[in-house]
């Protein structure tokens, strides 16, 4: 198979009759499992298998903060046939079986990340001990990549920690820290990292003494898990069936059947429970092989790889900025999330507000948000430190030596222009000047600046703390060096950035607006809010368009729609209902009035009083789901293509990454551009022509389709 360059080094030494196998990847920051490592490990285990006189074996990592972070996913990219992938899984099974079959106890001494194949390997050991380091974390997150654990994890984990806990861990791709892992029975003991190997030897000796070479499952269960009642659900077949069928329902509800992996996982576990471990391993390898080549997994892996590339801009590796100093003008919704995010990452931030009253309001909100994050009274030292990074003023003092200056004032072009000029005047010449606008024309915002070459747009996709993506908008004046410095900044903040050119509402906002406005049109034509939302969720959107509209704010949406209508009248026009809703004082979640109810009776339900504002009134028409899918999705895809054609986007991968990871475009579809590829340009073209005929010229196919 693929001759991969040698990476992880595996070493064996024998001390005082105890064998130790250690791994170390000199090239990467983490240890990962690849061919070299697997074969080196297999050789060593083969060497050990007849040394019955040994007290035992300890496996550990020589890499700080990384035990074994799982398999190297790149080795899967070239596989075309399921059988080929299946063979890899079997090889993994064989290796781990070798470990399990050793004639003496084996202890995994875990310090740092222990994921995927790394965790699966440690499951086959007699005991697991781990360090108390915060870097020590456990998980089987294969589902995130559209896969299932392929090295025996689906079989061994339920046996070790019970079916219920195992399902939770794998289906939710949960990550556990050391304490949680111990509580679950995943690890037997926690020690400080420096004593890990000593504790490993102690553990081996005690295992040897107790003469049970392989500890019994029941020993590892908590006493209540051993009670008939506690283990009943996990350990008898009726209970198991209940758990599995509940899980299946949950998975169906969550994924709408778009992702095969969770179903495969349940099926494989079931096989093992019903037909025994051998059949289970067999089923696991087969399922894994098929998933590796499935289009869903391929897309999830592709988006993941694109995200990594958008994070590691190779050139920036050597720029060190921390801790940075930031100026921020305005501390409203966007401003405060910027302040919290930057301060949480250790940067100093100086906020300028118009008056003391606004400072007070901002401080109140910041304190409340930090307190909510930490849920402790009094605030722990970390929270105090975070707040200590944020200072506020009204007089533009203390801005001269800032590295990055961001305006986050209200969405009015004149206000933003004025704010940027103020920042330019008070900061040093080499400061990066940035607007946080999500849609306003960047060139126009920067018009009044003297140093337009230093000016960029930073559109942080929401919600800022969890959404990794940033649309880094540039104008024709933006200096390349400033772009690199900004990317280095974003990398340090843990953000993935994609450079896009200035254009009407940039890329993300424009394509999302096309989708949302189309949803509003379907609503105006008589459909019900919940039907449209349900339709889009069943397509794989995390939330329906109207939930999203409430979240974005209807006033904001109207402003963006007006701008788009002005700049791109052939594609956008303000829909009537939007204005009617705004005029009715509905701004969405921010004032608790939108398409849904956010307070009082019927909270979470559609607020049917909106229908009185729409044609058709309270009597809504049923709609065909297929039609909703087509109109909304193609409105999005067509505008995405238009952005590529007009060079707002540099390439289609950027567009796919932003759409999937930034906006929640269904990942199995791979993004708007992959969707076009996959469907075929001609077919998409035809569909668009048909929609154009039925619904108007906004559906006129983009040049590139």
């Amino acid at each position: 198979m693929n001759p991969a360059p040698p990476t992880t080094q595996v070493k064996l030494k024998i001390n005082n009759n105890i064998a130790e196998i250690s791994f170390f990847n000199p090239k990467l920051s983490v240890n990962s499992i690849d061919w070299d490592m697997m074969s080196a490990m297999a050789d060593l285990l083969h060497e050990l298998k007849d040394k019955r006189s040994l007290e035992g074996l300890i496996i550990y990592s020589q890499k700080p903060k990384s035990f074994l972070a799982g398999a190297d996913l790149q080795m899967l990219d070239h596989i075309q046939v399921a059988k080929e992938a299946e063979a890899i899984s079997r090889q993994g099974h064989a290796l781990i079986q070798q470990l399990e079959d050793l004639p003496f106890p084996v202890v995994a001494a875990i310090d740092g990340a222990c994921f995927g194949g790394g965790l699966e390997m440690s499951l086959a050991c007699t005991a697991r001990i781990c360090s108390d380091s915060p870097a020590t974390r456990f998980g089987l997150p294969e589902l995130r990549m559209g896969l299932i654990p392929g090295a025996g994890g689906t079989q061994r984990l339920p046996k070790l920690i019970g079916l219920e806990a195992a399902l939770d861990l794998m289906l939710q791709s949960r990550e556990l820290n050391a304490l949680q892992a111990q509580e679950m029975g995943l690890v037997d003991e926690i020690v400080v990292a420096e004593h890990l190997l000593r504790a490993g030897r102690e553990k081996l000796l005690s295992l040897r003494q107790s003469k049970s070479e392989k500890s019994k499952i029941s020993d590892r269960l908590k006493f209540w898990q051993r009670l008939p009642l506690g283990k009943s659900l996990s350990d008898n077949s009726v209970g198991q069936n209940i758990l599995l069928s509940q899980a299946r329902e949950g998975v169906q509800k969550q994924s709408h059947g778009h992702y095969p992996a969770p179903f495969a996982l349940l099926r494989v576990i079931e096989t093992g429970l019903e037909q025994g471990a051998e059949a289970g391993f067999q089923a696991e390898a087969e399922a894994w092989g098929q998933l590796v080549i499935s289009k869903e997994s391929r897309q999830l892996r592709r988006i993941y790889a694109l995200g990594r590339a958008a994070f590691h801009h190779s050139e920036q590796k050597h720029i060190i900025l921390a801790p940075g100093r930031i100026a921020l003008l305005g501390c409203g919704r966007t401003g405060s999330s910027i302040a919290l995010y930057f301060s949480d990452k250790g940067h100093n931030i100086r906020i300028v507000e118009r008056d003391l009253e606004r400072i007070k309001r901002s401080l109140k909100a910041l304190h409340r948000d930090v307190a909510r994050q930490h849920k402790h009274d009094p605030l722990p030292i970390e929270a105090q430190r975070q707040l200590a990074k944020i200072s506020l003023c009204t007089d533009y003092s203390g801005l001269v030596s800032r590295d990055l200056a961001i305006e986050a004032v209200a969405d009015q072009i004149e206000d933003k222009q004025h704010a940027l000029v103020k920042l330019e005047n008070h900061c040093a010449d080499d400061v990066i000047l940035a607007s946080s606008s999500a849609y306003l024309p960047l060139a126009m915002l920067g018009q009044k600046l003297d140093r337009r070459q230093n000016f960029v747009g930073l559109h942080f996709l929401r919600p800022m703390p969890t959404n990794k993506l940033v649309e880094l908008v540039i104008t024709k004046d933006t200096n390349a060096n400033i772009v690199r410095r900004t990317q280095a900044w974003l990398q340090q903040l843990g953000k993935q950035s994609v450079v896009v050119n200035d254009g009407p509402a940039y890329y993300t906002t424009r394509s999302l607006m096309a989708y949302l406005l189309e949803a509003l049109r379907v609503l105006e034509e008589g459909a019900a809010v919940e039907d449209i939302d349900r339709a889009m969720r069943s397509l794989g959107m995390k939330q329906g368009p109207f939930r999203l509209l409430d979240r974005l704010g209807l006033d904001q949406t109207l402003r963006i729609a007006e701008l788009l209508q002005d700049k791109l009248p052939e594609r956008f026009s303000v829909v009537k209902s939007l204005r009617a809703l705004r005029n009715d004082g509905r701004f969405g979640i921010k004032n608790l009035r939108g398409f849904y109810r956010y307070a009082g009776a019927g909270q979470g339900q559609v607020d049917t009083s909106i229908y009185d504002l729409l044609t058709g009134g309270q009597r809504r028409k049923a709609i065909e789901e297929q039609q909703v899918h087509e109109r909304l999705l193609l409105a999005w895809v067509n505008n995405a293509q238009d952005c590529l054609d007009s060079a707002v986007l540099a390439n289609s991968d950027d567009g796919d990454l932003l759409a999937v990871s930034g906006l929640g475009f269904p990942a199995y579809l791979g993004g708007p551009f992959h969707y076009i590829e996959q469907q075929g340009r001609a077919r998409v073209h035809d569909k668009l022509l048909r929609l154009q005929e039925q619904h108007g010229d906004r559906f006129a196919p983009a040049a590139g389709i």
Partner: protein
Amino acid sequence: MPQKNQKIQRVAIVAGLRSAFCKQGTAFASLSAEDLAAAVVKELIARADLNPQEIDNLVFGQVLPRLSAPNIGRELVLRLDLPRTIPGSTVMRACASSAEAMSVAADAIALGRSQVAIVGGVELLSDVPVMFSRSFSEVMVAASRAKTPAARIAAFASLRPKDLSPQTLSIAESSTGLSMGEHAEAMARQNHISRADQDAFAARSQQLAIAAIDDGRLGAEIAPVFVPETDLLIDADNHPRRNSSVEALAQLKPVFDTKYGSVTAGNSCPVTDGAAAMILMSETRARELHMPVLAWIHSLALSAVDPDWQLLMGPTFAIDQVLRRAELELRDMDLIDMHEAFAAQVLSNLRAMASDDFARQHLQRQQALGEIDMQRFNVMGGSIALGHPFAATAARQIISVSHELRRRQGRFGLIAQCAAGGMGMALIIENPEAEP
């Protein structure tokens, strides 16, 4: 010790800021001293645009520390997430503590051991330690050393109800057994300071403070402090009285000698919460960082008198010393600022400084230090109006005088405090714009 081949560095004050001073138990009641000091130091560093990486020392004054955080200097370093390599220390010279903090850090800079220091002081008298009796402590110690539960119970069993009554701190001199106010009464008697003079001086302090608030001079020195419990942003002193008058002050009853006394709540300083801080730099570093110099620290002196004599006469002796050291005369001082513990104490010192007899008897001088021009004395009010957070007062004075010297284009400013135990401290700062 000076470093080898190191020439003595001039020390610059590059920035200063304080919190509002608020009466004990009012606006800052829900904060801790660390909260208050951290808020001021944070804004000080941010407003001065100082990169925290430049700081190499932090010295803070506090008279009544919380026992769980006795070294507030180091607490501030850690709490503010300043580089953790900055050693932080806490000094205590009673009401001159922030001047002492400045002195310690300035010496290190002058001798080349430090380049950039944060100094200041804080007092949060809403959060004073409450003490139990000595016998209670003995029981606690015995219980913690007990090896068996039975021994521990036995230790607690020896407690008596009276051991449990908490004792609050009183601001009394331990050597004389008298309170500060009683000492002020004694000084008023000995130096023949009338009630009317004391009240007139107190009214003056109030009027000047109000004027400095109204024209924004004091506000510019205050960092607004957010109090999460009340959601208020505190940016103004809450003690200065707009409607204070000699007549109104005359109505107040004496507090310490209720029958024949003259010291009232109106002509003494109130106890307040507050914090103040400054950035000090060596001349070299200030130039390298292009930091504008607010004032140079010119000279500094300490004094102490016998507490059984006139406890609060320290300032006169310290001023005598600092002028000798600076080879300057009192008339060279464009501004003079003396901490106002009591009007009786200020007036006693002014009288002593103007007296040839006093000079000959106590200062080894043939002539008096001089009559003070009241146009230059405590021109923005003083502790009687603004209040007195013990360890923050001296820094407050230094910051105000630094700015006022620039406004008046004066050259030298003299700042003095009296402190518990009979101590005094005085220092001279110089306006860099008025150097010849």
